[in-house]
């Protein structure tokens, strides 16, 4: 009797702690979400307003480029839709390239004996470990000389490079799990190696490719340092546009939080879709579960 009492108490303590931890980790995101639906008066209220009448005016500011001038503020048109388009275009293109090339390389590493395979794999991984700012110095010079500054293609190639090492490692993990026999059977049926790969292995690797793609997508979507240094107005991505509030006074927080919610939404959705692969993703496919 006493033993089971003690157990219940421990259980309750544990659940209270889990609940508290969840609240702590969710609260800032919740607060961002809530703030984006507040009027300018409500969002600066002290003590903070927990209950308020939601407004869509911040979102209208973001997309309709019309700023409500009730408080005598000058209209501040945003080009958020343009930056959002840039982010989508650059992320998707770089993901297609890096997952495509990465899968090919991963297949080769997984199925064939290559001379110096470990060295190659180590080299590929090490490119990802470099501090972005240290790589940025030469990259900046190279891009200036090649005329790739402030171009979409410049950022697409940069992110492809950045994601490639990850894609190779992740895909190698996934392809290692697909039985070789599938291909071998196809080859006995007279398929060539390439066609056996396309017919037998590739369909099995699609889930893995999707998971890898989502991780690459999030990396490109979130990347800031490269985009900040090499992009101008035409190729500016969302994080760079958000960073431009730095040093400004009188920040329009409604506009900022609404943009941030729009910008974070896809990441949150993808995190839930990818929950099975999160561990794999953050450890380059080396810890599988």
């Amino acid at each position, binding site marked *: 009797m006493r033993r089971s009492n003690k157990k219940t108490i421990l259980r309750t303590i544990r659940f209270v702690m889990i609940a508290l931890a969840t609240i702590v980790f969710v609260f800032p995101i919740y607060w961002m979400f809530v703030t984006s639906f507040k009027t300018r008066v409500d969002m600066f209220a002290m003590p903070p307003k927990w209950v308020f009448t939601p407004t869509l005016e911040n979102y209208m500011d973001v997309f309709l480029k019309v700023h409500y001038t009730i408080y005598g503020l000058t209209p501040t048109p945003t080009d958020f839709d343009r930056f959002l388009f840039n982010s989508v275009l650059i992320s998707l293109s770089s993901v297609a390239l890096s997952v495509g090339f990465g899968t090919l390389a991963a297949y080769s590493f997984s199925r064939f004996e290559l001379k110096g395979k470990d060295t190659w794999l180590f080299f590929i991984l090490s*490119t990802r470990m470099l501090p972005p700012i240290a790589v940025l110095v030469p990259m900046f010079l190279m891009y200036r000389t090649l005329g790739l500054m402030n171009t979409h293609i410049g950022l697409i190639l940069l992110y492809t490079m950045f994601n490639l090492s990850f894609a190779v490692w992740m895909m190698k993990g996934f392809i290692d799990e697909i039985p070789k026999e599938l291909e071998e059977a196809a080859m006995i049926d007279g398929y060539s190696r390439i066609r056996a790969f396309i017919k037998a292995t590739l369909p099995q690797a699609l889930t893995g490719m999707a998971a890898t793609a989502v991780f690459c997508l999030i990396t490109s979507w979130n990347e800031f340092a490269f985009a900040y240094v090499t992009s101008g107005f035409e190729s500016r991505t969302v994080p760079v546009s958000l960073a431009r509030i730095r040093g400004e006074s009188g920040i329009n927080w409604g506009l900022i939080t609404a943009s941030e919610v729009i910008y974070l939404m896809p990441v949150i959705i993808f995190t839930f879709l990818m929950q099975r692969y999160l561990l794999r993703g953050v450890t380059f496919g080396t810890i599988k579960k």
Partner: protein
Amino acid sequence: MDENRLKWFLITPTVIILLFWVIYPLLWSLGLSFYNYSVMQAFAAKPTFVGIQNYLDVLSDPVTWSRFQVTARFVVLAVSVEFVIGFILALLLIEEFRGKRIIITTILIPMMAAPIAIGVFFRFVLDETFGVTTYFLSLFGLGFKWYTPTNVIPSVVLVDAWMWSPFMMLIILAGLTAVPKYLYEAADIDRASWWMKFRYITVPTIKPILAIALLFRTMDAFKLFDLIFILTDGGPGGASETISLHLYRIAFQYFYTGKGSALAYVLLVIIIVLSNIYVRFLTRRPVETFQSSETIVEV
């Protein structure tokens, strides 16, 4: 195409991209690090060769060392705080219950979110007049100014911990669930206390995975740029200016390109040493280490 050619053909695009986008610029900046050069100088002006002068300048500059100190303080504080919180979270979440997966995924959202978006928003959250943290602290009669030379690093650490403790949790949780159940059952028969089980079964078994988590976070914290850039911009008075931020200033604000390349190379060497240790841990299969540590437990 015969297989021997095919296997090299398949890795060619990857290798070319990485060579052209990583190795080539790195060689370029290695060269530049021996020149007195600025991208702002006239195109006609030739960079002058100065030998290792840039390296001497960078390494003898007391500012560089104070930036390294700031970085070290940040890395040590952030990684240890994240490790402790992550470990506690993992222990809380080890047992199965309904909705566990949803809770874990929810907690992981900060890690997946863009550091820039987080940094921008935390300037709103931490604001000293209307920030929600100011309000919560005032409930306890506390006044806290985060943007002061002493408080700024702990504040950045807290934001970083909010983002990255879940990462530690995720990896430690994987380690904990991989500990074979029968070890605990055997220990129960021997009436081992929970501390004995933790000390002699759990810790030795998950050690390799802990090493991976720690090294990964150490390297990431060392490289941290965007969060600090947006949250504090190195201030006040350089109190939170990490080495990445310092390098950014040298190379992209003062445009001392030669000197910047030299400092970039110093950072590269540090990262290469760290990542070598890291990769060595990664390539050692955790399963094998688990088995070897089991034998230690049995002895």
